Structures are given as C-alpha cells and as structure tokens.
C-alpha cells in the first residue's frame, strides 16, 4: 500500500500539469473518454440536483415565495434538460465506453477519434445550455435560461412566446449533443459487432454488451427525430418556417409527436444500460450465473422494438381518437411483459444463491424493488382513462423519477462502486458506501413515495406554487425533507470517491471474484487493455478459469 501511495504522488509530480491536461484533452483512449463522460455527468448531476432542491424548497408550503415563477420555470426546464441530456446520457455513454471494449476483450473502441469527437461535442452542448444563463437575455423581459419545459411544447417555443435567445440555446444544445450521441451509438454498435475477441460469439457476450448494443440502436432511431425537430424549430424561429407556429397555421401536435417519438425510446436508452449493470452485478453477488440468458437477450431486444411504438401514451390527453388511444394502451402495456420477464430472471438469479450484501448489491436490490414499483405505476398510467386524470400530475412526476432515480441512478451508483476498484485500482470505503446507500434510499423514498399522493389529489406538475386547502401541503413537505437526505447521500458518495481514490487500499485485479473479462486484466487496466487478446469459450470466461473441473461451456 505504501509503495502505491508513493508511486501515485511521485508520478504526477514528474510530469507538468499542462502536459497531463494535454493528455486528457487529446486522448482517444476509451477508458479516459469513459471517465471524462462520467466526470462530466457527475458535475452536471450536482448542478441538476441544486436546481431540483430550489424547486422542492419553493414547494415546501403553499404560497411560498422563495423564487419567482420565472425562476421556478427556468429551474424545471434546466433540471429536466440537464438530468436527461447531460447527466443520464453521458453516464450511460461513459460506462459503455469504459466497459464494452474491456468486457468483449478488445483494445479500444472501433473509432477512437469519433469517440473523442462525440464526447467533446456533447460537452459543448452542455456549455451551450448553461451559457443561456449569460447569453439568453435578448429583448427586455425575455428571461435568461430557457423556461419552456424540457419537452418544450409548441407554441411556447415560437418567437411570439419565447423572445430573446434562451430557447435558441436550448435547441442548439440538444442539436449538438445529439450529434455526439449518435456518434457514440454508431461507435458502440461497430465495436460490439466487429471487435469481439476470438470465441466470443454474439451468444457468448456478457449481457452488458447485448444491452448496450440495443441501447445504441435505440439512440440512432430516437435521437434522429429529435434532431430533425430541433432543426425545424430553428427554421421556424429564424427562417420564417411554420412547422410548429400555430399562429401561422402550424401544428403544436406535430411537435408532440416528434418529441415523444424521441422521448419514450429515450427512457429505454437510459434504463437498458441500468438493466445491464444489474445483469452483471446481481449474478456476481448472488454467486450464480444469470438465469435465462437467452430470454434476457430476447426480452431486451423486444423492449427495444416495442419501445418504438408507445410514444403517444404521453399524449392521451391531447384528443386522439379512441382507436388511437386504445392502440397505445395495448402497445404500452405489452412492454410490461418483457420488462416483467427481466425482473423475474433477476429474482431467479438470486434464488438459490449465496447473496453478499456489499454496496453495489444493495443498490441493485433497491433497484429491483423500485423498478418493480415504477413498472407497476407505469401500467396504471398506460390505462388511458387513468392517465386522463393523472397525466401531467405529480403522480407522473413520482412515476418517472422512480424510473430515472430509483432505477437508473441507483444502478449507476451500484456500477460506480462495483467498477471503482477496476478503474482506480483502489477499494472504496465500504462503510461510507453503505452510509451513502441508506441516506439516499431513505431520501428517495421520502421524496418520491409521498409525491404520488398529491397527484392523486389533483396537483398538476410545473406549478411554482399552490393553493392551501387542497390536501397537498403535508405531502409536499415530506417530499422536500427527503431531498436533504438524498443530497447528504450524494455528498457522502463524492467524499467516498475522493477519499478512496487518494487513500483507499489497493484493490487487486479481481476483488469481487467475478467472471467477466475486465477482471482478468490489471486494475487500472493498462493502455490497450490486453497484452494478449483473450480467447473465450463461454459467457463467463473467468469462471471457466477458476473452475476447470466444471466450466460453463459444457452447458451452453
């Protein structure tokens, strides 16, 4: 341990800061780019979290006047846009970048330069969005940051209703980061299809690779319509187009279709990688192979396909025909079937195992429970008439935060702890990890369990204040209290990462006694990952090595 500390403190000192910075800025290494994506996402997670906290404190009691309606509207617009495009997406891409080549026994991504380009253009998108706070002031009264909501329904985005440049920064930001997303998606697909090590057929890939392949396919299909819509919006705003300009005969509903044909697959773009983390972590900490690998693959791919046909369930209240509503009820509910299969398979993986409750597993167990609830409230919202009542209410807000926080963020935390030893070569502090888990778990449930109730009692989302006497007060108070637990949890998490990076004990190559290829190389992995390209015979190559008497390939 002491030799390591010395080595770490001596190595940087031997190279000037500018040189190290130059290395990071010009890197095309998939591991470094992965880390850049993840650190970028973490920074924005803090920013988006602060925006959420401002909203929750404003809503702590009725007729609160901590912030003006203008500020509140900017906060929810920036919170949503930031969390989806500059936290969740970069997090997903960062982990995919770091893990996919390692897990398929490749030395890098298929297109390292495209990889670097995609990251930096995504980063530019994030800067565009936040530059709006400085540059968004156009005409008097235009406000600064965008205040049109993260789905920016027309005609609020038209010049008439959104003067100045705040909407333009929002549009440019999504346009530019969308290019990065598609670039990374192409890269992931090419890497998985072309760069697998000898012996690794598609059917022997780790589930994480399969799930990221599906995710990348969805990114290409989903982000393209969003990019097209952003271009049309720019044409409307600057070249006199009338796609969405209702005052000139444009259609507000067309924007909704464009947005949600992106927006719903986007949920799966984010949650499928969350499934991927769970599918790698749960088996290792249950000490069993994943149950029903082929079914898991099939379920993932069918989720990918079905998710392309459910978008209009975000539009049950816009006045579609009863036939169209019924179609989208059916397609939306259909997606519950493969999702349910996944939950059952994870359960069956744990069944008969020897479950170890380390921090990554705790986050995955909480994910299983929370994703179950999120899926079931999703089914209730798929019942279109129920959605006529609860669409755009706090019930929906609670539901999708259950998916995004309870599902995606929880598994991302699990992934942080699980792969931290591999990435840094250091073990994280288990005590702090558990403290983070419990603080965040309690905070999450205080905030989002109780947030369902005001929705059932008629509270719409996106209101900066509310009337007393509607039975909403106590639920909002509890939801706000929960935020502080979550914030404390995140602080412990960041503290743990920093402390462990500088003071943690050496982790070794394979601290979890795991089975996928990344654990066969050193921690952190060397440049180009593998001196000798590995050859695999089953889905768990390290299991085969550790149990030569009973290898997996006999059964697959």
């Amino acid at each position: 341990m002491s030799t390591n500390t010395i080595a770490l403190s001596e190595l940087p000192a031997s190279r000037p800061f500018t040189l190290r910075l130059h290395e990071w800025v010009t890197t095309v290494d998939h591991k470094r780019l992965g880390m850049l994506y993840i650190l970028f996402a973490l920074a924005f997670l803090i920013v988006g979290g602060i925006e959420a906290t401002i909203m929750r404190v404003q809503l702590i009691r009725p007729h609160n006047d901590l912030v003006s309606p203008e500020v509140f509207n900017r906060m929810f617009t920036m919170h949503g846009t930031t969390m989806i495009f500059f936290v969740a997406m970069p997090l997903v891409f960062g982990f995919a970048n770091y893990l996919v080549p390692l897990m398929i026994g490749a030395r890098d991504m298929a297109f390292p330069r495209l990889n670097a380009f995609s990251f930096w253009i995504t980063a530019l998108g994030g800067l565009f969005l936040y530059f709006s706070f400085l540059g968004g002031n156009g005409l008097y009264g235009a406000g600064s940051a965008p205040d049109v909501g993260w789905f920016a329904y027309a005609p609020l985005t038209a010049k008439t209703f959104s003067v100045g440049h705040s909407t333009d920064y929002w549009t440019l930001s999504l346009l530019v980061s969308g290019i990065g997303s598609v670039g990374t998606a192409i890269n992931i697909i090419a890497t998985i299809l072309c760069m697998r090590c000898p012996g690794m057929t598609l059917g022997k890939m780790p589930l994480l690779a399969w799930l990221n392949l599906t995710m990348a396919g969805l990114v290409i299909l989903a982000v393209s319509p969003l990019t097209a819509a952003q271009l049309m919006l720019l044409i409307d705003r600057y070249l006199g187009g009338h796609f969405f300009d209702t005052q000139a005969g444009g259609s507000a509903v067309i924007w909704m279709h464009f947005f949600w044909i992106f927006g719903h697959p986007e949920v799966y773009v984010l949650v499928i990688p969350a499934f991927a983390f769970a599918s790698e972590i749960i088996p290792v900490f249950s000490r069993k192979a994943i149950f029903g690998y082929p079914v898991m693959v099939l379920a993932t791919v069918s989720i990918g396909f079905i998710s392309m046909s459910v978008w209009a369930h975000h539009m049950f209240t816009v006045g579609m025909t009863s036939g169209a509503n019924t179609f989208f009820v059916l397609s939306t509910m259909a997606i519950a079937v493969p999702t349910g299969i996944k939950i059952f398979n994870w359960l069956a993986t744990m069944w008969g195992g020897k479950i170890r409750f380390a921090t990554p597993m705790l986050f995955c167990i909480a994910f299983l429970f929370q994703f179950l609830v999120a899926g079931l409230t999703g089914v209730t919202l798929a019942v279109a008439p129920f959605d006529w009542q609860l669409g755009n209410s706090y019930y929906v807000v609670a539901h999708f935060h259950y998916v995004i926080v309870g599902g995606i963020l929880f598994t991302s935390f699990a992934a942080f702890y699980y792969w931290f030893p591999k990435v840094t070569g250091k073990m994280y502090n288990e005590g702090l990890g558990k403290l983070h888990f419990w603080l965040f778990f309690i905070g999450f449930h205080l905030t989002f369990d109780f947030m369902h109730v005001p929705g059932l009692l008629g509270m719409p989302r996106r209101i900066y204040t509310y009337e007393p006497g509607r039975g909403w007060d106590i639920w909002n108070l509890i939801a706000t209290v929960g935020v502080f637990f979550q914030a404390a949890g995140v602080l412990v998490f960041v503290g743990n990462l920093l402390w462990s990076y500088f003071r943690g004990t050496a982790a070794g190559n394979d601290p979890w006694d795991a089975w996928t290829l990344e654990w066969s190389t050193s921690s952190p992995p060397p440049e180009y990952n593998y001196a000798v390209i590995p050859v695999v015979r089953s889905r768990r190559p390290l299991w085969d090595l550790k149990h030569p008497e009973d290898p997996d390939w006999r059964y697959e």
Partner: protein
Amino acid sequence: MSPTTIFSPASTPAQSILGLSIFALLTVAAIFIIVFALLAYALVRFRNKNSDDRSEPAQIYGSSQVELAWTVIPVLIVIALSLATARVIASVQDAPRPPGALEVIVTGHQYWWEYRYPKLNIVTANELHVPLSDPAHPYPTFLTLLSADTDHSFWVPRLAGKTDLIPNHPNSMWIDPHETGLFLGQCAQYCGTQHAKMLLRVYVQPREDFDRWVREQQQLPQGSTEAAATSAGRRVFESTACVNCHTVSGTPARSNFGPDLTHLMSRDTIAAGAVPNTPEMLRLWIKNPRAIKPGSKMPAMGLSDQDLDALTAYLETLR
C-alpha cells in the same frame, strides 16, 4: 377531504375512470405483493450466512417451463387490463351527444379561461356555471376546447379527466354532474409564466338556479346604462387602455384579449381564481397585477389613487 381528489367523482366520466382505476390499482397491487414477497424471501433465505464459506452454490442457467409461465401469465393480465381499458375509453370518448345538451366553448388564454355559451348568448370568464344533471333526466354539458395562444389543459378531477386545449386543434369533452356545488381544478398543461394560477372553478347548480343565472347574465349590467355613462370610473375605463382588452356589453369596450367584464361582480374571484373578488383585491389588481399574479398579461396602468377609486367603484356596478 381534498376538493380536487380523483377518488370522489361527481360526474359519469370521472366515475367510469375511477372504477377502472381501482381495478388497475388492485391488479398491480396484487402483482406487487407477490413479487415483493418473493424478493423478500429470496433476500432472507439465500443470504450468505457464513462469510468464511467461499464455496459456490449450484449454478442454474435457466428453465424453459418457468420462463414460459412468467411470460404467459403477464400476457393474460395485460390482455384483461387492456380490454377493460378499451371499454372505458369508448364509453367516455365516444359517448353520443344528446340533442338537448348544453354547449359551452372554452378558450384557454394565458392565464385565464373564457367561456362562451353560443346558444344562450353568454360570455363569461374563469367561473363556469353548468346545470345539475339528474341521472333520470340527463342534461350533460359538452365543452368544446380551444386555445387562443399556448397549450392548456382543462382538469377538474371530480368531474372528468383532463383534456388539452391546443391552438389549431379543437378538442371536446363532456360532464354530467350529479351533485351541486363548487368544483375546483386548474390548468394542467404548462402554458407559461403563470401556469400555476390559472385556476378552474365550476359551479354546478340546480336547474332553476342555473336558469336564473342565465337570465341575469343575459341582461345588461347597471353600469352600462345611459345614466352611468358619465360616471368618473367609467370615463377612466373608456379613456385608458382598459378597453383595448376588455368587453363590457352595452358600452364601447368590445375587446376580447382579456376577460369579459360585463358581469364581473357576479363572480366570486378575480385573476382566474387567484384572489376573492373584494373591492380591496380588485383595486390592488388594477393598481399592480404583479402583486397578485406575477407574469400576468394585465399591465399596471399607473393610475392615480383618485382614478383607481373611481374605476373600482365603476367595476363594482357591473353586476
């Protein structure tokens, strides 16, 4: 009880939705209990009891029968639930419109509601009056939903689910309230700065009371008479920008950018339900709308105290 709960329906659409919702909630609750019990059992039963024991459990790779079972059962549940849903969708959305139904055109504005009763020749704002509908002799109200600017959504949870008001995209919905009283709600689609204070108030009245309200609304208010034409307040109203946005029937004020003020005093609230309609509030609203509703499209006119008093007094005559 919350005045906006979905669990206390007072009209057929809300009632059908609640029945279906309870069915859906019970179904998912049952699934939750079963799966949660399995999860809890697995966590307790299969935890690693002895941390020194590093032996691996039996490796099981899958089972086609089990996979088939937990595919087929959810498929059946999904089919049952979507059939029940399809039935309610059709019964609410495709309900025939009886010839005698009351018709109201609702227009959403940033940040208030305009109500027109085309057959009764009434225009009012923010407070919708509809007749009680006796189930034996239904007298439903059909709403045509339009928007003058951005998207809005009409949501009074005890009467019906929400339907959006979208420019260039007329929608409709219906209610047949079985209970008299005041029903609350608010705009449920983000429509701009003051989305939060675009409140809905629906007054369900017995038939006789509703008919009396109609007759009163059809008459000209006291403030529009010839005798009142020279009052100081009316002079202020008609000589400032008030007339650019508001209508008072029987006077030169004939714009419809803002709420129709013909029978302003028949309303309990002003500023789309934000504050009660008292002389003090009315005066404050004219003096400084931002004090009540920051972001409101109503400008502060910068009137002198004397003009404010006169104007408030004039508006008080619009009964």
